[in-house]
């Protein structure tokens, strides 16, 4: 068992690809925001890439191991320490029973992943072991981990002394400016040409009012075409209103004038337009950015986005591991 001494800031068990296939019932995907880092943490300790691991955000947890284990910490550098001795990120490490793992704040990036050989043992709920914290389901008792809880781990075959090759890791931006891929649609035809140009040329600032449901962006106002202004009354009165529709995961949802990227725990439907969508291959960038950092959106085709996702998946395998 692993005892939670300090929980950190909404640290939660997530698996990949998450609660896939239930948006029609209102369940978001959940899952890790930076699945690239989480999958590599699992591969390091001999788990399946999508096995349940712990996502830590902004302030890390303190965990006491009451059993021997092999662990790996990837993603943002939360300065991991075992009994006050620093351990390497992106490397499998042996933990002896009685040792305490401390994760602090990330020196770079925002989200850190802890995988344990054998993987966290939590019940499956609607096809996933991932946590939907706001919905109170999945993970440990439906929520982020809490002080005093004990986390159980299945028996595993992890080996210490393995590390992820430098070229296989995501590179977190140091200049606080991120180029984020977007694909057009589904409601791009509600925005005028000036609106599209403005969207793709603006430095959008990530608001601190952002979480695993939505990433709110500060920037200029949108302009719309005739279709948004001259429409049937059932679409609603605001230009950004549309008759209620399903939302894609990653939709850039124009709520009046504020764009909100609907991320892992986001809503599955509503009545605002989504002129662009952030594809899955770019989600790790969202997961690793902090409030006040800047997004510059770059339009790519669906085929390009899918190829990038396949390229990342190919990196999240044993081929990316080397012995220390």
């Amino acid at each position, binding site marked *: 068992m692993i005892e939670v001494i300090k929980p950190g800031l909404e640290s939660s068990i997530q698996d990949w690809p998450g609660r896939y296939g239930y948006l029609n019932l209102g369940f978001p995907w959940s899952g890790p925001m930076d699945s690239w880092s989480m999958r590599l943490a699992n591969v390091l300790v001999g788990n399946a890439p999508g096995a349940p691991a712990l996502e830590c955000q902004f302030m890390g947890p303190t965990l006491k191991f009451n059993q021997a284990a092999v662990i790996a910490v990837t993603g943002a550098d939360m300065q991991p320490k075992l009994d006050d001795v620093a351990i390497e990120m992106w490397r499998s490490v042996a933990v002896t029973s009685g040792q305490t793992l401390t994760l602090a704040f*990330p020196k770079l990036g925002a989200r850190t992943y802890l995988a344990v050989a054998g993987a966290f043992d939590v019940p499956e709920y609607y096809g996933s072991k991932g946590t939907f914290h706001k919905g109170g389901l999945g993970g440990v008792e439906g929520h982020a981990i809490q002080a005093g809880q004990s986390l159980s781990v299945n028996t595993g075959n992890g080996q210490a002394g393995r590390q992820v090759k430098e070229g296989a890791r995501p590179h977190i931006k140091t200049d606080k400016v991120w180029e984020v891929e977007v694909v057009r649609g589904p409601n791009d035809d509600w925005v005028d040409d000036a609106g599209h140009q403005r969207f793709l040329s603006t430095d959008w600032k990530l608001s601190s009012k952002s979480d695993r449901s939505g990433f709110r962006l500060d920037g200029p106002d949108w302009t719309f075409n005739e279709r948004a202004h001259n429409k049937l009354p059932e679409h609603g009165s605001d230009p950004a209103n549309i008759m209620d529709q399903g939302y894609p995961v990653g939709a850039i949802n124009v709520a009046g004038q504020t764009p909100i990227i609907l991320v892992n725990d986001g809503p599955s439907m509503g009545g605002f337009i989504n002129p662009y969508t952030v594809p899955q291959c770019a989600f790790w960038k969202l997961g690793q950015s902090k*409030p006040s950092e800047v997004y510059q959106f770059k339009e790519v085709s669906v085929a390009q986005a899918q190829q990038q996702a396949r390229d990342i998946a190919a990196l999240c395998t044993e081929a990316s591991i080397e012995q220390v």
Partner: protein
Amino acid sequence: MAHEVELQTAGNMWKVLVKIGDEVSAGDTLFIMEVMKMEVPHEAPADGKVTAVNVEEGQEGLDAGMVAVVID
């Protein structure tokens, strides 16, 4: 002995509850940050007098690790 209270997370400064010269007790809330729509209070590690306050309400995009308040 001076105690430096560092920001434990990146984010915005929502409330600053102390000023230079205030006497505080261990466990008193000094300031509250905001990140991911959550409040993150920071508490005094020890009794003492506030000798420096390096943050202001409304500051955005602060990085973790900066010394926000010093208690002596």
